[in-house]
């Protein structure tokens, strides 16, 4: 069996592990547009802060590829998929035959059309190369504007602040990271950022950019405000890299590639996993789990992927946020359990719907968070232990005995 995996990141590497659980023999080839062995993509901000060094970037040690007999083609892009011939064409003309193919191409930053924006005057924040380029510019005392106060923008903000750069965040929504934070939590985090010297402009966006004579950027906002900056980072989301499959028979593309329950794409032998998959939250655990299952299925396992609600841990400048499911929900149809201690920057909110956990948002008190995630994913009725949920000693024993007995017996 001939496996070809396009993209060399979390989904791909986990697919290798998945394949090898079932098939020790087949040949595996990974094609990577980036010039690196897979690295923890979210590590780029830590690298920029120098909390992580080059040698700690790899997601898996070199032996991983050797032990699993994986051929990795670095710095090559797959440009065409020929379903008839069952071949992938690389940008150097090489053609790789495959029996099973995994599309794990992730996403690329979305960059909106803005007057004056040129490849030379902005940065994206998604690749190792992005931060390597940014490193030279991020010098103490400089000023940066980041467009987008979502997780990527916030991580970029953190690393720049740690390097002594003065940061301004510009966000179109009325609050930080609107899909995950409700207004109250958003305000709490905004206050925290301002206390840490970060400027924040909400309900605003960039309208034009101009390079001044002194080399600095003059940035105009929709509100009319003008900002001067040395660095502009655009971090308003990613678009799935679906081009290889676009237009091929049997494949449906929405925002991403539509997959069946077994993560197959509709083209025989072709699977997809990770950020490129339609409807999948662009989060690392999801990419890893999908990758593993896709790999197993490519090797014949026939496993079903149960779509997982988003869950995410985000930390910056010492603040820690765990969000899951419908974490920003407010509204009548939900029952909200909250614990708020603004002085300690603690915010804990559980969102219940029909007596089941539908979301959770935990700021700075995150112990045992995974238990909430499990309750949420399994859709367990919490009526009988609702008043336990926010107790400081919430834990397995808060759950009905049958559940914790079973869990401890694993």
């Amino acid at each position: 069996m001939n496996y070809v995996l396009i993209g060399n990141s979390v989904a791909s590497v986990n697919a290798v592990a998945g394949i090898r659980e079932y098939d020790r023999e087949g040949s595996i080839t990974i094609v990577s547009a980036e010039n690196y062995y897979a690295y923890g993509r979210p590590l780029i901000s830590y690298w920029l802060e120098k909390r992580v060094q080059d040698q700690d970037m790899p997601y898996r040690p070199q032996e991983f590829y050797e032990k699993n007999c994986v051929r990795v083609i670095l710095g090559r892009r797959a440009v065409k998929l020929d379903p008839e011939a069952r071949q992938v064409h690389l940008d150097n003309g090489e053609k790789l035959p495959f029996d099973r193919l995994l599309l794990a191409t992730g996403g690329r930053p979305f960059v909106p059309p803005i007057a004056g924006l040129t490849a030379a005057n902005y940065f994206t924040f998604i690749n190792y190369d992005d931060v390597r380029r940014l490193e030279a510019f991020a010098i103490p005392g400089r000023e940066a504007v980041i467009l987008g106060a979502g997780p990527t923008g916030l991580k970029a903000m953190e690393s720049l602040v740690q390097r002594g750069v003065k940061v301004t965040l510009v966000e179109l929504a009325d609050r930080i990271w609107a899909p995950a934070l409700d207004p109250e939590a958003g305000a709490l985090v905004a206050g925290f950022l301002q206390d840490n010297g970060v400027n924040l402009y909400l309900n605003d966006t960039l309208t034009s950019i101009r390079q001044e004579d002194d080399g600095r950027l003059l940035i105009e906002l929709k509100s009319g405000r003008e900002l001067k900056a040395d660095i502009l980072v655009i971090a308003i989301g990613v678009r799935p890299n679906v081009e290889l499959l676009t237009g091929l028979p049997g494949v449906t593309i929405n925002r991403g590639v539509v997959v069946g329950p077994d993560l197959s794409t509709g083209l025989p032998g072709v699977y997809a996993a990770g950020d490129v998959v339609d409807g999948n939250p662009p989060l690392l655990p999801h990419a890893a789990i999908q990758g593993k299952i896709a790999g197993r299925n490519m090797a014949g396992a026939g496993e079903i992927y149960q779509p997982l609600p988003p869950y995410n841990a985000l930390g910056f400048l010492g603040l820690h946020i765990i969000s899951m499911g419908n974490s920003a929900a407010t509204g009548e149809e939900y029952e909200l359990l909250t614990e708020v201690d603004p002085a300690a920057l603690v915010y804990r909110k559980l969102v219940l719907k029909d007596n089941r956990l539908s979301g959770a948002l935990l700021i700075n008190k995150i112990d045992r968070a995974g238990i909430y995630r499990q309750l949420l994913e399994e859709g367990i009725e919490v009526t009988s232990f609702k008043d336990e949920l926010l107790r400081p000693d919430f834990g397995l024993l808060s759950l009905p005995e049958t559940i914790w007995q079973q869990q401890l017996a694993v």
Partner: protein
Amino acid sequence: MKKVYARPAYCMNCHLCEVNCIVAHSRSRDLFRAYKRENLRGTARVIVEERLPLSVAVQCRHCDDPRCVAGCISGAMVKDSETGIVYCQEDKCVGCWTCVAGCPYGAIRPGEKNGRPVPLKCDLCREAGEPACVAGCPNRALVFEERRAGA
């Protein structure tokens, strides 16, 4: 694989498993140094939960498909393919705490050692023979045994 199983009927809520865990994961492996010099109080990787009279020591179940490993953004958390032990390569950890959000048992707590993040989770004392919590439990409320074939 051999795992630690709690026998709640005999857990007497002494929390000595936590103490023994802390000492076993200290630099000095000495009770007094661990607590008084290394300041490791509160860093146990086993959590004794209490709903008196019931108490039970909760710790990592070393899952077959560990969520903590799947979610780890740095590749620090791994499952040893030979022993099945799930452990963190602590010098690789960046403290994002995705593992905390992932673990269905809440068996990982965010921790810190010398200014570096440490996911406080059981590693079955992988360098020793028997986990310290089991060896030191005065009432045999913890056992280290194989229960499921292949698990």
